[in-house]
């Protein structure tokens, strides 16, 4: 009983609650048909949101105004870089992944350079950067769909007993991210900066380095995600990351991370990502029209967050 209460007090539980509810509603509609397949599909698709969501979470935790709007463009460019480097050749998979990571990190570094050297607010800096990246991508990839090597494509879709291996790896990754956040100096620094950047500086936190690393991390995860997406969706293209602009922010905030900064929530990212995919599944399964689907999506998001409620203000 008491443990149930502490569980309910955790902000992330609500996103899992929402996911479960939506899933139950769907299988109630189909009479139990396809329930397992839905979870498999949800896990495979949620992975991509979770990876960028974690990067976005670290950035948002840096405090108000911090957000990485360059993720979609980053994903698009990295997907093209990865596919071009791999060039359909299984032997080049690792090199391609590294290239995507390097590309993402370079983008993160440029973002922070704009923020730090030119004192541009992060939201505008990353938005401007994303325009430039998009152009680079267009002229580099020419808008063409570049195919992944078969080995890589199969890997992104590899399942063991209906559980995507990529999802298992991502779970391990998020556990690692949780540990970094709570138990490593870097993570604590991020949390401190998010609560009060001046106090953090005065408490000896290396503010500049932490912010730099955070934007790099977000960039790197965007790059990795781009490569994986190109594998799963069988080809890189400029638009491949578009939906992750809103989705990466949505999973972070629905998952219980504070937009005011200084408070992050790793499991919530998973819960929210599954919730969003299963919500799409449910509405697609119900077969409602687009308009109704959008309205319901919105109302359900508002409903879940209202049920969860915010935290009480301190003093």
């Amino acid at each position, binding site marked *: 009983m008491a443990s149930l209460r502490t569980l309910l007090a955790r902000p992330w539980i609500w996103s899992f609650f929402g996911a479960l509810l939506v899933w139950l509603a769907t299988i109630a509609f189909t009479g139990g048909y396809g329930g397992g397949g839905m979870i498999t599909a949800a896990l495979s698709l949620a992975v991509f949101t979770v990876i960028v969501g974690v990067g976005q979470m670290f950035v948002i935790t840096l405090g108000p105004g911090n957000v990485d709007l360059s993720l979609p463009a980053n994903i698009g460019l990295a997907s093209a870089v990865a596919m071009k480097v791999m060039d359909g050749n299984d032997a080049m998979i690792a090199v391609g992944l590294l290239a995507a990571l390097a590309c993402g990190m370079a983008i993160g570094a440029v973002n922070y350079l704009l923020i730090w050297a030119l004192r541009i607010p992060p939201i505008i800096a990353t938005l401007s950067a994303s325009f430039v990246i998009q152009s680079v991508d267009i002229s580099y990839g020419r808008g063409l*769909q570049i195919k992944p090597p078969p080995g890589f494509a199969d890997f992104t879709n590899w399942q063991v007993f209906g559980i995507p291996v990529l999802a298992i790896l991502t779970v391990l990754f998020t556990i690692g991210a949780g540990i970094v956040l709570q138990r490593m100096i870097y993570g604590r620094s991020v949390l401190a900066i998010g609560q009060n950047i001046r106090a953090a500086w005065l408490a000896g936190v290396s503010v500049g380095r932490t912010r730099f690393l955070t934007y790099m991390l977000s960039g790197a995860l965007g790059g990795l995600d781009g490569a994986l997406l190109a594998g799963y969706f069988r080809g890189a293209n400029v638009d491949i990351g578009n939906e992750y602009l809103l989705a990466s922010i949505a999973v972070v905030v629905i998952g219980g991370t504070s937009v005011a900064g200084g408070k992050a929530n790793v499991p919530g990212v998973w819960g929210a990502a599954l919730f969003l995919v299963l919500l799409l599944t449910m509405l697609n399964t119900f077969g409602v029209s687009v308009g109704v689907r959008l309205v319901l999506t919105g109302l359900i998001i508002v409903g879940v967050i209202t049920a969860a409620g915010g935290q009480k203000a301190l003093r």
Partner: protein
Amino acid sequence: TSGKKIAFSNNYAGNSWRQAMLDSYGIVTKKAVADKVVGAADVFTTADKEVPTQAAQVQNLILQGYDAIVINAASPDALNGAIKQACDAGIVVVSFDGIVTEPCAYRVVVDFKDMGKQEVEQMAKFQPKGGNLLEIRGLAGTSIDDAIHAGILEGVAAHPEFKIVGSVTGDWDQTTAQKAVATILPSLPDVVGVVDQGGDGYGAAQAFAAAGKPRPTIIMGNRQDELQWWKEQKEKDGYQTWSASIAPGVSTLAFWVAQQVLDGRTDVPHDLLVPYLAFTQDDFEAALPKIPKGGVASHEYTQEDAVAAIKANIK
């Protein structure tokens, strides 16, 4: 018309169809400028498929003093204000693909409704027994999506052996389409065919494979990867389907129409119907090698084609 300047207003460049459109346009107009048929033919692209941005772009082209504007519009109606201003300034406006409804402009129209209807007609050839269909729709709230959808509904009405059991929104984006199909598949009964709006076929095929569902007949959209996949399936077990889409090169037809109007032709009808580009089981393999890897099938028009098309449309 050697002194006339023609501008091309485009609102997006990030996919292979748009890239092919720009390529075709570039090839034809460069030659036209070199041959002194027109004075200048400049291309202006905005980023985001946004209506207000393109409206502002058109207004700025007016200020630039162009004689004609060729436009692929983000919205058929919402740009009318800006188009009217252009016409009032004496500028010839020719729209294609994304057409505008403002009466003073010219429209190079593809009969999308017929294309949708044809999809079902063709499906009936490959699946004479009929069965369940999955429909993938395009970007909600746009006129092309609406027209193709209407055509498909008409086709299904004419072929009662077919039933649409699921409908998802693919936003004309392979990633979104594949994701949407993946979420709905687990709960769908067996599907014999997929009708879509072009370009989503490959993503749909991947989603069916990932879910381990039998491969249905998927109507294709003239992209290289779609035709390539079709070829592989055909070689494997004689798979049959049909492919249709508007040719990106229609931009060049619009260019020539603008040139003809500038040349003083007064008999050009404001609505020019041109056929869409379709491939059948017999001719698609011949076309395949000519399409760049990751690109889309196209066709460039000549001045004579334009004259002929105008003639064909004069009633």
